[in-house]
């Protein structure tokens, strides 16, 4: 009984709020409100709740239209947003084919199990030790090929380094790091010299095709652009580039690829000039190995002070880097040239490091996504 009344009252309130009542009804209802405070209270409370529900509905619709607009504008290129089309499409396809896919997968799985069961029952039981032997021989084979490849590489390196002062060993096929998050890297000119094709790989091992867009053999700096369409613009670069000269004894660190995985090293500035008094570069005390060429040299604030380019053969731990100032000079020279690639002309180096007050672990973590292995063939 009471419920029935409440239903009627709620309906009346809703019609009252939305203005659907006729003037007579309205007057009658307002009188009821005045007489019965309980009804009045209900009207107020319900109105409030309706307002909240309405707002919820409006916001929801607004969010939907905002998202539509965003995607539209992004695909039209009117706003600078990475378009989500690929991802959205993937989700759509996934949802569409998930059923079919799972059925197919389970059938495939069953078949595979069956086949292996049959094979297992048919094959004569051989002792497992034989398998291991086989494995090892394959291993030694690959080791041999690797050794041969290394020897060939060494020969090549010796050949190229013979043109340089004999005391310096330049490693080749090295490291590069991002100077523009759209995919521009800097590395050493000697890393990519005589390159037929170039690929870069990030810390996770994902490889991208790249091409050399600028080389300066005198300063030993080269710019490499990632041309791979799979490459997505990275978040803003965490480190800055400083023109300033570091002080003697200032601690420095670097991340590079002397082997397949990224390697961290630290040291200090040991001389403000480079090999044989070269003023373009500085000397540091750091454990640098083949493959470290082109690694960024950073100071405590996370500012890049230079690019590692070589070490002295007869002295342990002595390495050299090219000062960041040279990179600035090169970029401004490119800007003055008319024919240069616009993607390089528009590059502005980040001057502000966002790594200033972080611990070294955090700094390295943030930087490592921006340091790439440069593979040359």
């Amino acid at each position, binding site marked *: 009984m009471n*419920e029935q009344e*409440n*239903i009627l009252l*709620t*309906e009346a309130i809703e019609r009252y709020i939305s203005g659907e009542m006729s003037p007579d009804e309205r007057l009658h209802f307002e009188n009821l409100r005045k007489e019965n405070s309980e009804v009045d209270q209900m009207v107020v409370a319900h109105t409030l*709740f*309706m307002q*909240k*529900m*309405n*707002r*919820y*509905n*409006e*916001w*929801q*619709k*607004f*969010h939907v*239209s*905002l*998202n539509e*607009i*965003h995607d*539209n*504008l992004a695909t039209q290129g*009117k*706003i*600078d*947003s*990475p378009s989500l089309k690929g991802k959205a499409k993937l989700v759509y396809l996934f949802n569409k084919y998930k059923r079919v896919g799972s059925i197919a997968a389970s059938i495939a799985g069953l078949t595979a199990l069956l086949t292996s069961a049959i094979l297992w029952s048919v094959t004569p039981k051989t002792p497992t030790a034989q398998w291991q032997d086989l494995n090892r021989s394959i291993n030694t084979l690959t080791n041999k090929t690797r050794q041969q490849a290394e020897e060939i590489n060494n020969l090549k390196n010796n050949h190229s380094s013979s043109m340089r002062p004999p005391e310096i060993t330049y490693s080749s096929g090295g490291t590069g790091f991002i100077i523009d998050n759209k995919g521009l890297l800097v590395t050493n000119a000697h890393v990519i010299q005589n390159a037929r094709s170039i690929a870069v790989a990030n810390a996770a091992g994902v490889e991208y095709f790249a091409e050399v867009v600028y080389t300066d053999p005198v300063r030993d700096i080269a710019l490499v652009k990632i041309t791979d369409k799979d490459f997505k613009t990275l*978040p*803003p670069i965490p480190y800055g580039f400083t023109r300033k000269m570091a002080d003697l004894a200032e601690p420095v660190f670097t991340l590079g690829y002397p082997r397949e995985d990224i390697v961290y090293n630290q040291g200090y500035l040991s001389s403000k000039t480079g090999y044989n008094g070269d003023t373009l570069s500085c000397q540091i005390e750091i454990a640098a190995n083949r493959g470290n060429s082109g690694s960024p040299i950073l100071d405590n604030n996370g500012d890049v002070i230079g690019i590692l380019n070589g070490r002295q053969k007869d002295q342990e731990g002595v390495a050299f880097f090219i000062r960041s100032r040279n990179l600035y000079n090169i970029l401004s020279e490119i800007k003055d040239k008319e024919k240069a690639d616009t993607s390089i002309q528009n590059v502005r180096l980040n001057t*502000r490091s*966002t790594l*200033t*007050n*972080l611990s070294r672990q955090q700094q390295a973590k943030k930087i490592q996504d921006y340091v790439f292995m440069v593979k040359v063939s």
Partner: protein
Amino acid sequence: MKETILEQEILLLKGLARNDKKSTEEIYKQNYNLIQALVVNNNGTADDARDIFQESMVVLFEKARSGTFELNCQIRTYLYSVARRLWLKRLHQQNRFTEEWNDAGNMIRVDDDMDTHEQKDQEYDLMHHSIQHLGEPCKSLLEAFYFQKKSMQDIADAFGYTNSENAKTQKYKCLMRLKKLFFSRYNKK
């Protein structure tokens, strides 16, 4: 010249209040890049920027809808100020460092608007939560009646009630449940 800009902006806001797609798109187009730069330059990603910008748009939307909004600054300035506050708050919540704050835009004080927005935003979340927890058929029933504005008869047909009176009773029960869900958490705050 300044007059016409002001008039244009007032027109845009009126369109926004009606949820008119063209006006919303225009405001979006004119301001998104600025807000994205603000967020991205201050330790955020493009996705963060999208979130923050859209939340700022909601604040502007509410403001325009309230009818009391007087345009005493450019839409751009307003959005920038709101987005800046929202982003600072988000950074603070995530304990990310903010000591180097890069910004370039003009700003005005938006403290009051932020407070009302925060409350409305909480209510929105609460409503969302309550509706999601309502279960079927209550959720669809209420949505059909209150949001899609369908008639009781249509609803009865669509949901398979024998007549619109039964649907009405069911709707009432659902609404009561929703209110209970909503206020049980609302009053705790």
